[in-house]
């Protein structure tokens, strides 16, 4: 079964079967084949004949593949609902990550910069405080890229067509590039401070190239690994 197994794996993944079921199916088939081979050998066949007979008893690639693809409930979510996997889920994840980032920023502002009108720029911070704000920046700017990598990894692992993953990556890049965070203490009574976000190409000309550059940077950093993973999978299939 050394050769049929990789072929069966590719067929099942391309048919949209969730990778965890494919993995388990192949593991069970391997065990079953070992049992059949041992049984045939006990019946007096040579090792080679026993393996051939065991393969025949196990079933052909078409039969094994069709039996699995008939079980629609074993398909992955990325095939059953690609709009949710590559559209809604990344948006929710990004919203969650950015909510956490803004909360860290707001709490850092409140704790470490109580007198400042804004948490951005010009403050001399060091040590733990600096680490705190840098971690926040990393989360804010890294979230779209990490989510993009997640999209690419899922799509490459499940041998999906590129349309939905690329659409998801464009969406994340667009949102990531046009997002702007603003903070102000003056608009809120009692000086608590207010942090918000909006999504725009910018009201002033210098902001437009920045937003486009940011979106393109996110897109490049996420699309390129995806294309490389696709190439790697294709290469490993034909090797």
């Amino acid at each position, binding site marked *: 079964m050394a050769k049929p197994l990789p072929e069966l794996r590719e067929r099942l993944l391309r048919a949209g079967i969730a990778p965890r*079921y494919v993995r*388990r*199916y192949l593991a*069970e*088939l391997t*065990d*079953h084949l070992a*049992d*059949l081979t041992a049984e045939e050998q006990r019946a007096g066949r040579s090792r080679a004949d026993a393996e*051939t*007979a065991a393969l*025949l*008893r*196990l*079933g*052909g690639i078409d*039969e*094994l593949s069709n*039996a*699995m693809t*008939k*079980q629609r*409930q*074993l398909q992955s979510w990325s095939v059953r609902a690609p709009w949710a996997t590559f559209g809604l889920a990344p948006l929710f994840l990004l919203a969650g990550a950015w909510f956490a980032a803004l909360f860290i920023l707001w709490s850092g502002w409140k704790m470490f910069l109580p007198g400042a009108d804004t948490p951005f720029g010009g403050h001399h911070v060091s040590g733990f405080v600096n680490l705190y704000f840098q971690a926040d920046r990393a989360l804010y700017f890294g979230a779209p890229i990490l989510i993009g990598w997640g999209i690419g990894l899922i799509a490459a692992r499940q041998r999906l067509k590129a349309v939905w993953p690329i659409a998801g990556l464009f969406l994340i890049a667009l949102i990531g590039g046009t997002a702007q965070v603003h903070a102000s203490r003056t608009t809120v009574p009692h000086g608590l401070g207010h942090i918000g976000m909006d999504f725009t190409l910018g009201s002033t000309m210098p902001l437009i190239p920045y937003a486009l550059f940011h979106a393109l940077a996110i897109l490049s950093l996420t699309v390129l690994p995806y294309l490389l993973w696709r190439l790697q999978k294709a290469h490993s299939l034909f090797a």
Partner: protein
Amino acid sequence: MAPRETNPNFMNGVPELLILRLLQQEEMYGYEIVQAIRSRTDTVIAVGEGVVYPVLHGLERDGALKARRKTVNGRSRIYYTVTPVGSRRLADLSEVWTNLSGAIQKMLTGGQYGEATP
């Protein structure tokens, strides 16, 4: 070696019934299930043995079976057992197949011994 002759319609509900019936008696892993089907049906039901696993996975996904990994004689196997959902499904399937086989039997008997048609 020529390919073995199998029952192409085996997948249409019959494996579910046989698997649920077998697993209701005791927990088994895939190879045991196939051997039990072969021996208890006197090999009348022949099938590519690997196709039993998609049925098992589908039943487990539907909540009719529960799987657990168990090591026996140094080999790790996935054993399956029937859940209450599976028991209800078995009862439903058994009723359907009992009715169906009764109807077919009646039809066959009627064809053999019934009145001649013009």
